[in-house]
């Protein structure tokens, strides 16, 4: 009796674990199915080469490039903010800061990531854009600059906490050897600790990029909804995620080509983030082996 009960419990726990596999299959199946339907109507060559994305207009063009450029532009700006700041924080906290300071500051930094992204969207549109317009006269009300900067602030904790874990895991004797040679903390940090923790730092950067590419509400609110193939940070653009939101807000008929565009955009986004996440997972696995 007891054995049967144990077995039933084990199997039901297993079922819960298998749900996660079902989610992955579900995501891939749904995206692939709808995207396949989409590509029966739109040529895949046009999808990757057409420079216009106007599925909601009468003159329809289905070129993903403008959405990709919008996505890359906002992500690039975000990473340019988050990377130097996040990395400096992680080096400062792991090598310089007193323990008590580190203990109080870490949860506060995590708070940056806990704030809902719709709130950051509000900051970008209502606070940061008007502020930047004082210095950049040509800055449009919707632009990738403010959205990117604010997104960068949001992902600072992603870079800093993962990098810091990596820096912290560097064996102490490496540092001591460097100090013994008369090196300063700065020299030790940049010439010994950072190179030793480089794989962990790279993982944090890749995850931050993946996070920026998938971020939705900040760009939907503050970057505009005009797909445009440009690298100019002062004009409105549209990201893949913002496009999906734009279509979802409207009343789109199930099975229509408009409905399928969001899945075609979605599968592009999924493939991008999947590649980045897999890469970071591979690096992380390799680096764990190094120290264990």
């Amino acid at each position, binding site marked *: 009796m007891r054995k049967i009960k144990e077995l039933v419990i084990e199997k039901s726990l297993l079922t819960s674990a298998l749900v996660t596999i079902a989610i992955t299959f579900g995501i891939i199946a749904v995206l692939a199915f709808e995207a396949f339907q989409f590509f029966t109507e739109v040529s895949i060559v046009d999808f990757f080469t057409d420079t216009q994305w106007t599925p909601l207009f009468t003159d329809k063009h289905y070129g993903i490039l403008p959405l990709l450029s919008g996505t890359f532009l906002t992500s690039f700006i975000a990473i340019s903010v988050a990377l130097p700041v996040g990395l400096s924080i992680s080096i400062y906290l792991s090598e310089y800061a007193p323990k008590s300071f580190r203990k109080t500051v870490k949860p506060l930094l995590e708070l940056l990531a806990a704030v*809902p992204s719709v*709130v950051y969207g509000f900051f970008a549109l209502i606070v940061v854009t008007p502020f930047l317009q004082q210095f950049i006269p040509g800055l449009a009300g919707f632009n990738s600059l403010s959205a990117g900067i604010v997104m960068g602030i949001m992902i600072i904790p992603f870079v800093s906490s993962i990098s810091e874990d990596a820096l912290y895991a560097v064996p102490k004797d490496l540092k001591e050897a460097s100090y013994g040679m008369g090196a300063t903390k700065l020299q030790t940090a940049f010439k010994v600790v950072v190179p030793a923790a480089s794989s962990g730092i790279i993982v944090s950067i890749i995850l931050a990029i993946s996070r920026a590419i998938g971020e939705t509400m900040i760009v939907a609110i503050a970057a505009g909804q005009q797909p445009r193939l440009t690298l100019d940070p002062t004009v409105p653009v549209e990201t893949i995620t913002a496009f999906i*939101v734009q279509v979802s807000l409207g009343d789109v008929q199930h099975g229509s080509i408009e409905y399928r565009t969001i899945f075609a955009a979605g599968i592009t986004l999924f493939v991008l983030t999947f590649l980045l996440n897999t890469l970071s997972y591979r690096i992380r696995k390799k680096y764990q082996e190094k120290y264990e």
Partner: protein
Amino acid sequence: MNNIQKNRLKDQLFKFWGIACTLFGLILLSIFIGDILIDGIRRIDWAFLTDLPSRKAEKSGIYTALMGSIWILVLTTLIAFPMGVAAGVYLEEYNKKNRLSAILEINISNLAGVPSIIYGLLGLEVFVRIMGLGASVLAGALTLSLLILPIIIVATREAINAVPKSIRDASYALGASKWQTIWNQVIPASGGGILTGVILALSRAVGETAPLIVVGALAYVPFAPSNPMDEFSVLPIQIFNWISRPQHGFIENAAAAIIILLLITFIMNGIAVYFRNKWQKKWK
């Protein structure tokens, strides 16, 4: 200045730079929150919490959105909490090292990195269309449950992993079965850690906007949901809707609603940190 002095100076300079960077984000966040308080605090009163949405900014309240958020929170907890903890227990206690566990692990780590809006597309097709739930609270809660499942699983595994082996051995020595050991010893011992993870995951669910927009949650609902099949809105969507309107009154409303949303998020994070500290002390 000789080389040693130069290096010491650089060292000091970097120290200040490090402090500046650490404070950079925090100071900006305080400025933002200060700004929002100035914009929105006057708007918050009892009527703002209990009024229905309206076309006039000064008459609008967040009642339906707040109720929608509470519905989503409760349903998501009911779905994701048992499922996530069960999966975490299975991975940590039953299935240590084989092919399946390796696949599950890679898969969960990958799911945690899938953008939230993709979960929205999954929910739209599977829950809203195929299962025919429509744009209901239940469809929204199911979608968010899938989204936070990986977070709960990872947190559960970490918490269980921290329970010393001696506790399990003592339980087995007394003749307890595997499940009795898990249920009576391991889960209570790791409870604080699991709770921390679950609360953090739920606080993320409360702030999520994009997947619910994709699933079809509305910006304007005249009534609060009364059962799981009702249409709904949530606080973040209400905020998004108000931000998109040009009139200044709605910006004030958005700021006020953000104060409420941040209050909920910060309280949940505070509770989570409290549990974490309490639980960490237990094993050290």
